[in-house]
Each structure stands twice: as structure tokens, then as C-alpha cells.
């Protein structure tokens, strides 16, 4: 197997995969990596995390994607148990014809169940469904010190809480039991509403979050002055009475590593302006398939390669509700003035449903996510400013996307980090965790 990188391809630390196709191979593989004496290891799913949270201390990882079998599926109740390497894409393909869909899905379907649990991922329906972990009822794992262990909200709840959103540190997850949600079709009734500034976004968010399960907004981060904060608000609900056919992922891919980045101020300005003007009317209703609604970026495989050799970082923060509007505005201004930043920022109102996960990212408030081509000095300067704003507002950054947060900021934002550290499997350690806790 070829060496692996994280999605942002920064920091560029190739991971040597040790494939595990069977649960029964996990202990031996852990021992084999330990025998290399290069440090602790980590599970690696699809590598859709951007920064260094999916990179192992030893640069040797257990690649779990071959562990992808279903163990049980009850099509009456929508409860399924599957091995942790199964992708959301496969699960959807199998469950949809039975009238079931993921309760929570992130913006890509190429993630594994193990990865979705370890980052306690959230989707466009956070305000109604909470995080992925809210729908997980049972986990089995292998720990190097205990062997096979099971946990759930009632069985060893402290281990469960440390594992949901636990960044893969508390054990190798073997199986996940989760609740799916009923759907009647493979389509979404979508509304796309153009807005001219952030005030409009917040107003739209308030009025549409009640009537729509899914809401998200794309904002042009390069626009300044009177155009600042312009974007599209997209909301939707599962459409009733339709076909239950899964949509096959497209085959288009960026075939090679580009030697340079296609992402530059000119291409970005054009793209963002074009995107803003893509619809003639302010408010457009349409019916779209679930794949184009949830996974627009999956249409081009390995799109991360367009950033060239240097890679890129995603900055994702969440700001608590009471400061939301003001701080998001400050952050957007800071980014626009820096002239950095790329494509579109994603804004999402997160809801009040708490997660059991000790390190779960979402807070009741507003989340903003944006990609930055990797340019060392520039990113450091800008991120320092943004971090200060986030920190002061009591917000936090998403470890799944992070490659820069300071230990001080991390520990303050996630005070329960020490409980996870106490339950960490001694043979598991990520570069992220080492960086922020030591």
C-alpha cells in the first residue's frame, strides 16, 4: 500500500499503512508496530481529516478500510452494526433501498464509521439531530492494555464519552452500532437563497432553522466593502414519496499531484464572484438528489491535489451563540483584509443538542470553515489573529481540521482533555495530541 497523507497534505508526514482486514488481526498488527520501536500508532480510516490529528506519532498507522463488513441490520428499526472501516458511502448504498439514511452526515461520504465516531462529526442538521455520536449506541474496541472492550452510554460510559470525539486515542474501534433515520426518497427539497450580508444570513438562519432539517451557508470571503458577507443560504428537507435508488459516486478525479497550486488570487476571485452570481433569482426552490445536496465536493475525487505540493489548511471554528454575529463578522473582516483564504467559507448554525463526547467540537453557536493554501508565514500571522478572536469569544477550533492550534488555546477550549488523556491507550498517539498536550 502506498503511503498516506492527511487530507490537507500538510504537515507532509507520509504514514506507512499496516492494513487490517479482520478484527482478529488487530492485536498482532499493534504488536508488530510496537516492535518497530518508532513510537505509538493510530487507526487511519479514509484520511479525510485535514491536519495532523490522523497522523501517528510513529508515522505507522493501522489502515482500517478493509474492515468493512456489516454484522447486523434490522430494517424494521434502522439499527445497524458494522465494522469500523465501512464508509458512509457504502452504508448509504446498502441502507437507502430499505428506506434508511444516515442520521448525521458530514460534507463528504468518503469517511469511515470509525473516523465519524472519533471526530464525532456533525452535519447540516446539527440543530435538530446533534452529532454523529448522538446516534451511536454501542462500540467494541481493542485496547493494547485490555484487549477486547465494549462501551455504550450505559456500559463503561466514561470510556464511551472519551471515545466519541476521542480522536482515535482510546482504542482501535472494531464495530459501531448506530441508528439510521427513515427517508421516503433519495432526494432533498432544497431552497437556495442569495443574501447580501451577514445580517441577512443570521436572519435567514433564525427563520429557516425551524422549518428545515438541513441548513448551511456559503460565503464569499474575499468580498470587501459593500459586498462583504454576501453568499448563499441553502436549506432543505428529505423529499417525500420518491425513489430509493442510491446515487453512484462519479469517477472524476484529479489524477496526479500538481507541482504548483491552481488556487491563486485570480482564480479565486473569479470563482467566488461567479458562485455568488450563479442564480438569477434571490430565492430558488428545487429538488436535488442527496449526493449533490450533501456531497458537492465529492464530485471531484482528490480535489485536495489542486493546492499543489505545499498543501492547505482548513480553519474551522465555532463561536458561542451570544457572541456569534459580532465575532464572525470580525473574523470575516480579518480574513478579507489578509487577502488570503480561498473559495468559499461555510457558515453553519449549530444547535443546542449536547454530545456525550468529551472532546466533541460543536457548541451552540455559529461555525465557520474556510480553506487556506499553505503559505507558512502568512497563515501563521493570520491564524494567530483569528485564534485570539475565537479564544476571547469562548469559541474553539475543530481538531479534525487543525494543524496549528496552540497547546494553551486547546486546553482551555477543551478542559476535559485530561480525562481523555487518562483513558488513552498507551500504544496510541497522534501528532496532534502530542503537540497540544505536551
Amino acid at each position, binding site marked *: *500500500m*502506498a503511503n498516506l497523507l492527511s487530507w490537507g497534505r500538510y504537515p507532509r508526514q507520509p504514514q506507512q499503512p*499496516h*492494513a487490517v*482486514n*479482520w478484527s*482478529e*488481526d488487530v492485536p498482532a498488527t499493534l504488536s508488530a508496530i510496537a516492535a518497530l520501536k518508532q513510537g505509538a500508532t493510530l487507526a487511519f480510516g479514509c484520511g479525510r481529516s485535514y491536519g495532523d490529528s490522523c497522523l501517528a506519532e510513529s508515522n505507522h498507522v493501522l489502515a482500517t478500510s*478493509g474492515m468493512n*463488513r*456489516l*454484522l*447486523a*441490520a434490522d430494517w424494521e428499526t434502522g439499527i445497524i452494526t458494522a465494522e469500523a472501516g465501512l464508509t458512509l458511502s457504502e452504508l448509504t448504498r*446498502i441502507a437507502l433501498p430499505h428506506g434508511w439514511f444516515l442520521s448525521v452526515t458530514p460534507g463528504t461520504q468518503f469517511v469511515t464509521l470509525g473516523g465519524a465516531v472519533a471526530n464525532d462529526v456533525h452535519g447540516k442538521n446539527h440543530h435538530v439531530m446533534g452529532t454523529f455520536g448522538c446516534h451511536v449506541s454501542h462500540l467494541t474496541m481493542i485496547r493494547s492494555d485490555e484487549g477486547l472492550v465494549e462501551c455504550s452510554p450505559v456500559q463503561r460510559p466514561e470510556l464511551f464519552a472519551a471515545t466519541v470525539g476521542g480522536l482515535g486515542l482510546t482504542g482501535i474501534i472494531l464495530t459501531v452500532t448506530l441508528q439510521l433515520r427513515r427517508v421516503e426518497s433519495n432526494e432533498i427539497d432544497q431552497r437556495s437563497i442569495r443574501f447580501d450580508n451577514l445580517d441577512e444570513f443570521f436572519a435567514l438562519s433564525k427563520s429557516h432553522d425551524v422549518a428545515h432539517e438541513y441548513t448551511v451557508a456559503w460565503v464569499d470571503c474575499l468580498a470587501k466593502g459593500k459586498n462583504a458577507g454576501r453568499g448563499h443560504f441553502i436549506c432543505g428537507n428529505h423529499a417525500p414519496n420518491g425513489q430509493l435508488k442510491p446515487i453512484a459516486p462519479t469517477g472524476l478525479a484529479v489524477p496526479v499531484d500538481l507541482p504548483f497550486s491552481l488556487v491563486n488570487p485570480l482564480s479565486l476571485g473569479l470563482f467566488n464572484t461567479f458562485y455568488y452570481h450563479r442564480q438569477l433569482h434571490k430565492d430558488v426552490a428545487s429538488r436535488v438528489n442527496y449526493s449533490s445536496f450533501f456531497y458537492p465536493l465529492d464530485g471531484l475525487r482528490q480535489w485536495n491535489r489542486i493546492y499543489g505540493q505545499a498543501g492547505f489548511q482548513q480553519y474551522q471554528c465555532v463561536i458561542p451563540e451570544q457572541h456569534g454575529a459580532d465575532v464572525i463578522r470580525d473574523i470575516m473582516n480579518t480574513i478579507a483584509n489578509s487577502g488570503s483564504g480561498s473559495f468559499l467559507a461555510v457558515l453553519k448554525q449549530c444547535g443546542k443538542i449536547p454530545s456525550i463526547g468529551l472532546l466533541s467540537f460543536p457548541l451552540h453557536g455559529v461555525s465557520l470553515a474556510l480553506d487556506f493554501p499553505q503559505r507558512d508565514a502568512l497563515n501563521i500571522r493570520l491564524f494567530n489573529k483569528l485564534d485570539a478572536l475565537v479564544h476571547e469569544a469562548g469559541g474553539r477550533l475543530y481538531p479534525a481540521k487543525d494543524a496549528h492550534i496552540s497547546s494553551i488555546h486547546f486546553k482551555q477550549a477543551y478542559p476535559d482533555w485530561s480525562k481523555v488523556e487518562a483513558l488513552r491507550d498507551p500504544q496510541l498517539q497522534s501528532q496532534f495530541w502530542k503537540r497540544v498536550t505536551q
Partner: protein
Amino acid sequence: MKQNIIIIGATSAIAEAVARRYAESGAQLFLVARNNDKLQLIANDLKIRGASAVQTWVMDANDNEAILPMLDAAWNAFNSYDVALIAHGTLPDQARTETDMIYALDQFCTNGDSVIACLTGLAMRFEPQGKGVIAVISSVAGDRGRASNALYGAAKAAINTYASGLRVRLFKSGVHVLLIKPGFVATPMTAKLDLPARLTVTADKVATDIQKAINKRKNVLYTPWFWQWIMLIIRTIPEFLFKKMKL
């Protein structure tokens, strides 16, 4: 159309990928392998993916006397088969085969003799049916002996020749024999090798090709397709040059 399929070496990653494709179209499967835990995991998974029935049978492929009872059980379970796939195999430690004769012959048995035994048994069952496809996984390694995998290649070459003869023999009866020659596939067998990423494909890709080749009743399948041309070149290199090359 609901198909019946029997797979020997059903816990192989390539075989599992093939089995999933048949399961999704509602096939009935009879799975044979030596590890019962793995077999049960796969059987469960295939049922959830849509197989209308799955039966399992534990057998070590080197146990020649177990083959006929296994076939009896298979034809009792589902009374005719559209497809058989033989997939089991090992990748011997070539260096060890060069000094340890017992090991070498043992490995030859697993990759050569036992496959020929299964082909023979399956032919006995398929011929009276007068229909169906017997597919067997060989390897591009069987196309020419190389220093790095001479023993594995020789066992695969034996299968190639046997399958070709069997194809001719069964032609009149309406039974077809497909010989499958994969190149580099990322599976547990190759997990420890440093395969060239650009030439290595997933078991799923190979499975797609295999299913198509079965449907089209192809004689020989190189998968992915470009291996046909790579092997053509390798086969045409004159021996006096080939023996000096490090391939």
C-alpha cells in the same frame, strides 16, 4: 436473474469482493474456506447486502479427501450452479523455498495441486449440468518464471495449462472455464510488499472485471487490462537477455 455461485477460498479479499457483487443482485452463495470465524462474518455481511441465501463449509484446500464431500454438500444446498470461483492461494517466501524443499513443495501444493484437485471436482459436477462457468484465479506471475517468485509462478503456470486443457475438454458440454490473471492487487496477501502504487488496484476493481469476464465468457482475463501488454512484452524478451535482468 437469481444466480447460484460456489466460491472456494471465500475469505480471500478478491473472492469477498466478487461475492459482494453477486450478493447485491440477490444470488445464492455457497462459501468454502478454512477459517470459520471469517467465513461467518462474510456470510452475515453478504446476507445484509442482499444475498438470498448463504451457506458455508469449512475445508482446508490441501485436504484432498474433503473436496468430494464438500461438493456433495454444495449440490445438496443449491441444486445447480451458474458460477464457481477458486480463489485460495498463498504467496510463498521465495528465499525460503530455495533452501527448504519441504516448505517449497508444501507451497506448491497449496497453489498448484489443490487448485487442480478443485478444478477436477468441479468439472465432475458442472459437466452433467451442461452449463455454467468455472473461474479460477491464477496470476500474471504464471506467465514467465522470475527469480523473485519462481515457485509461486510455477504453481500458477500449472493452473494455466490445466485450465486451458479443461476448457477444451468441457467446451462440448457447454461449460466454460475462465482463467483470471490479476496483476498487483492490494489485499492481505500483498500487504507486506512494497507494490508500486500506480500499478496497484483494489480488490473491488478486480472483482468488477471478473464479473464482466464471467458474463462475457472470456477465456483469459488480465486484470487490470494493461497487464496483458506488460506480460506480452515480458514474454517476448529473449531468454539470453531475460536471465541477466532483475525483474
